[in-house]
């Protein structure tokens, strides 16, 4: 039987779009992971990468396999959420956190920080390093969350490729770090393990911004390079959750290539819009 979509590019694109919508609907209904309100270009590209990696042929065939084979789920979630980043990415943001946000955090007896969408943990450890340098780490807890178990396990191991430390060192210095960066890790063969002091104040666990709710009150929330993947309706949900989860005067930090929704602009006031640093709006009328 000939494939009607094969020789007609327009029909073929239409088919992929329909298969992808059906796939994510089924995954949500049956497995509970909700990618329905992720933006389509990056989401579908990752889905097709997953289909190719496992030689599944088509998205429709992948749907059958993912729904019935739990061992494929982990690989699927990893592909859907992978962010390849580095410690102290966007050094100017970390410089600002160091000079403007840490002094305020220092006024709290216990400091609670949430890194939402922590991927493989680079950002969580970067924050831990700055807290330690400011003498705040022993009274801080950093809650780092992601939906991907493989990423969380990698993050919790505190082990990174040795060559990642080159970029990390350059970024650390550009962020105003003054110690030898090698103080923070031990290298062996082609791997590095970060200092256990940093690891001891970090909690890594699963949390889904699309389906889970707030789990406490925080003085600082970082959610960088996550909204770039969201449609507005999902970003609004996350913004409301962050507002609910922030202590008075708490800060939200998003990526430098991200903005807030119209509703989010009422919930948070910019402290440095270019760097993505916002503060919780105290106006009670904005309560979502």
């Amino acid at each position: 039987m000939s494939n009607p979509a094969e020789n007609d590019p327009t029909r073929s694109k239409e088919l992929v779009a329909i298969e992808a919508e059906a796939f994510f609907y089924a995954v949500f209904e049956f497995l509970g992971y909700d990618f329905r309100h992720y933006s389509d270009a990056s989401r579908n590209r990752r889905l097709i990468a997953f289909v190719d990696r496992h030689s599944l042929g088509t998205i429709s065939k992948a749907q059958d396999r993912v729904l019935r084979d739990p061992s494929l789920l982990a690989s699927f979630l990893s592909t859907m959420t992978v962010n390849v980043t580095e410690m102290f990415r966007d050094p100017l943001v970390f410089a600002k956190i160091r000079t403007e946000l840490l002094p305020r955090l220092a006024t709290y007896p216990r400091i609670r920080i949430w890194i939402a969408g922590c991927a493989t943990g680079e950002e969580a450890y970067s924050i831990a390093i700055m807290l330690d340098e400011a003498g705040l780490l022993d009274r801080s807890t950093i809650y780092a969350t992601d939906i991907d178990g493989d990423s969380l396990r990698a993050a919790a191991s505190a082990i990174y490729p040795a060559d990642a430390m080159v970029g990390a060192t350059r970024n650390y210095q550009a962020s105003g770090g003054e110690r030898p960066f090698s103080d923070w890790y031990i290298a062996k063969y082609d791997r590095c393990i970060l200092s256990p002091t940093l690891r001891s104040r970090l909690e890594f666990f699963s949390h889904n911004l699309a389906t889970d709710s707030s789990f406490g009150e925080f003085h600082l929330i970082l959610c960088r390079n996550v909204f770039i993947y969201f449609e507005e309706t999902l970003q609004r949900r996350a913004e409301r959750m962050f507002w609910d989860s922030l202590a008075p005067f708490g800060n939200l930090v998003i990526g430098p290539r991200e903005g807030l929704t119209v509703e989010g602009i009422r919930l948070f006031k910019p402290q440095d819009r270019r760097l993505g640093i916002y503060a919780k709006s105290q106006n009670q009328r904005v309560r979502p």
Partner: protein
Amino acid sequence: MSGPDVVVIGGSAGGIKALRGIFETLVDIRDTVVFVVLHRAPHYGGLDRVLQGYTAIPIREPSTSPWACTPGEVTLAPAGYHLLAGNDRTLSKEPQTPVGHYTTLAGVRAHLTLDAPILCSRPSLDAAFSSAAQLVNSVTAVLLSCASDDGAQGCEDVKNAGGRVVLQDPESCEAAMAVNAALRKVEPDHVADPRGIGQWLCRTRG
């Protein structure tokens, strides 16, 4: 549903110079959505201002994602992110089915991602070309001087999806690796030096 025409221009070593040549003859893009993707170091900012020195056409780097592209403007992939092209979508107030919450529209958006670098590059030309190939719009990929194979696969994807492929004449390339790789994969719709590419884009637009 066809929407604005889309042109995606990609290059690396020698790409900025080639782009300057294109802008000498492509002085007006009318209602076309133009993407420019150039390899550079992840922390290299300020390319938008450099390119703006070559043309009166507004050059914009997305400051958010998804980013709605304005026809008549050039959307530049920021350093350190992949740029993907996608179509506008709106959330249906009353979905017809439980599955399709969104309606696809012919407007064009840019999406930034932190997926792993492809062929050591982020932004990747392949990622930009291949995503553009999926648009409902009429798409042209323009591959300029580039010292890796990046862009060749994307050209093939654009061609397979019914789009057009324009290659910089290898003779005029500082680095012809990508263009030569593309020539092994596709029959280009046009091959020219940068000024010639600009003229061809003017002549063939809708």
